[in-house]
């Protein structure tokens, strides 16, 4: 268990999210705890279905209920606990102190309203901007994310934007109220590979300018390597490894993390070394394996892995891992 960091900007403890399905209850996020420090970029990494998006949505209580439900946990943001706060308090934080960028910029923008209207909404709501001052701020926002002809573009509809422009507009919108935290859920997955890097650069620059912390949800370790300060690796609803980005790359300590790293190409690796996908399928969330959920796919699994769930244990350099086996052996 990670030690409490009172100075953390956002502190998540034992967050548990469940979804009701026809076949039964799924625990998508299982007692997840982590901290986010002011100004840092924290990556939440894992395969799809591992619970990273659910974690992100839960932070702002955006889990659709039904079918979802935040079953347990605490989320401390500054001096407030969000899960027990009233709706008005949470709404006052959403889009204002904590902003979100979603995966699909096409579907995440309302097709029947102009870019200008949607971009200005957080400012209207939280900063009470109206009329010319609102317009001026919106123009500045679009300019800041390098959208040409911003005045004309404010009149455009989302379908008239390219995917990259839409996501840049989303970034601009997330920055509009100078948030403390930006949560970006797979912000580039839906985009063409050629502009992914460009967008991430923009996002990185923007959070830096606004001195905001970034929670970057991704399945892409390449992205993590390049932009993140720290990394949390998730598997089957739990954080299995947490460390600085450097640590994770140099000395991964969870067999799943190792597997993930081997399955992606790395610049510091000889070409001759083959990419090795992790064997087996991600577990069925309705029927998780006993003990460590990764053990059926783990080449190093021992009997204990099948019987007991390993806790996330802190080691040197703030490196924490949930594994019964020490991979360095």
């Amino acid at each position, binding site marked *: 268990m990670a030690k409490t960091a009172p100075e953390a900007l956002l502190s998540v403890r034992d967050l548990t999210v469940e979804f009701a399905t026809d076949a039964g209850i799924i625990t998508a996020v299982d007692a997840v705890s982590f901290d986010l420090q002011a100004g840092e970029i924290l990556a939440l990494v894992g395969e799809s279905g591992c619970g990273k998006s659910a974690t992100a*949505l839960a932070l*702002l209580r*955006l889990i*659709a209920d039904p079918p979802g439900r935040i079953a347990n946990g605490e989320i401390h943001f500054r001096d407030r606990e969000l899960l027990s706060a009233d*709706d008005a308090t949470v*709404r*006052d*934080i*959403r*889009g*204002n102190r904590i*902003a*979100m960028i*979603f995966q*699909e910029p096409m*579907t*995440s*923008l*309302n*097709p*029947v*309203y102009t870019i200008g209207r949607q971009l200005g*909404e*957080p400012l209207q*709501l*939280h900063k009470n901007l109206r009329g010319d001052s609102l317009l001026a701020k919106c123009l500045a926002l679009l300019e800041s994310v390098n959208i040409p002809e911003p005045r004309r573009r404010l009149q455009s*509809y989302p*379908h008239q934007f390219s995917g990259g422009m839409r996501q840049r507009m989303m970034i601009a919108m997330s920055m509009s109220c100078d948030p403390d935290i930006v949560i970006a859920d797979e912000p580039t997955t839906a985009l063409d590979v050629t502009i992914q890097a460009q967008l991430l650069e923009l996002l990185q620059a923007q959070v830096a300018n606004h001195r905001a912390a970034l929670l970057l949800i991704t399945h892409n370790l390449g992205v993590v390597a390049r932009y993140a300060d720290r990394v949390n690796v998730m598997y089957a609803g739990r954080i299995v490894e947490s460390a600085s980005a450097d640590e994770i790359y140099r000395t991964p300590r969870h067999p799943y993390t190792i597997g993930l790293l081997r399955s992606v190409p790395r610049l510091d690796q000889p070409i001759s070394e083959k990419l090795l996908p992790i064997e087996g399928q991600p577990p069925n969330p309705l029927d998780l394996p006993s003990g460590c959920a990764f053990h059926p796919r783990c080449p190093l699994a021992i009997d204990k892995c099948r019987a007991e769930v390993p806790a996330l244990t802190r080691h040197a350099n703030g490196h924490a891992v949930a594994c019964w086996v020490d991979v360095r052996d």
Partner: protein
Amino acid sequence: MGKYIGIRLAHALVILAIVVVLVFIIARIIPGDAIMAAMAGSVDLHDPSVVERVRHQYGLDQSIPVQFAVWLGEFLRGDWGTSIGTGQKVLDMFVQRLPVTLELFVGATLWSIAVGIPAGILGALKRNSAADIAVTTGAIIGVSLPPFWEAIVLIYLFAVLLPIFPPSGYVPFFEHPLLNLRAVVLPTFVLGTHAGGLLARYVRSSLLEVLGQDYVRTARAKGFSEAAVIARHALKPGMIPVVTVIGLSWGGLLAGAFFIEVVFAIPGLGRMSVDAIFQKDYPVMQAMLIVVSLNVLLVNLLVDILYGYIDPRVRVRG
């Protein structure tokens, strides 16, 4: 937007032309002609001269292409012919009866919107609550009650047992506004309830679908309250299919008017059509079919234009 409307209009005109030809042909392939139909069982048919006289009077002894050419020319000049049934000018009949049916339609549409949209929104917002079940059940009842039966029951309840409204009949608004309103309450209710039930179901399902959309989540993530999310982001896109349903049910109102105007003895276009069909009154039937088609086409055009207004994506597709 101008080009978009132009294309829609051109479509409508082509369909109208097809309808005009079909209408004329269909009216004539129904077995039995007007004279036989109207005179079957009457004492005078044993005298063939009677039949021939009447057939000649209405031009029914000419070939169908000739009848068509003559009729179309006159129709376009505003001469819609003379009703076999009433002896009135068909155009005059429409002018007299249109306001009556229009009053019913507008009333029923407003009533269906007033009932259907709030009920649908309530159902969607309070999904699976008691209110939602009430809305869903009410909508199913509204849609599935046979209007004919509903009308008779209402007449016995509110005109015979509890004499609040007249059992049937119609008084023009400008003749006696109060009597007019009393006379149209029950028929409007019956006609609009059916459409309202349909509308409530569509609004509910459409809103539920919209509420599951990513952009609604985006709106929530901006910090909007649930009410503001609905009002600012869900209603307008949620109305896209609803506009279609309102358009469709406007077309469907005419089918309802067939029953309602007969049951409530209202001298509107529906009654006139029923009489014309029973009497095989070609001039009226043809004009009616064309006006019905025109009505549907116009409503569709209006729906298309509204679509373009509501959904900017449509305008480009043209």
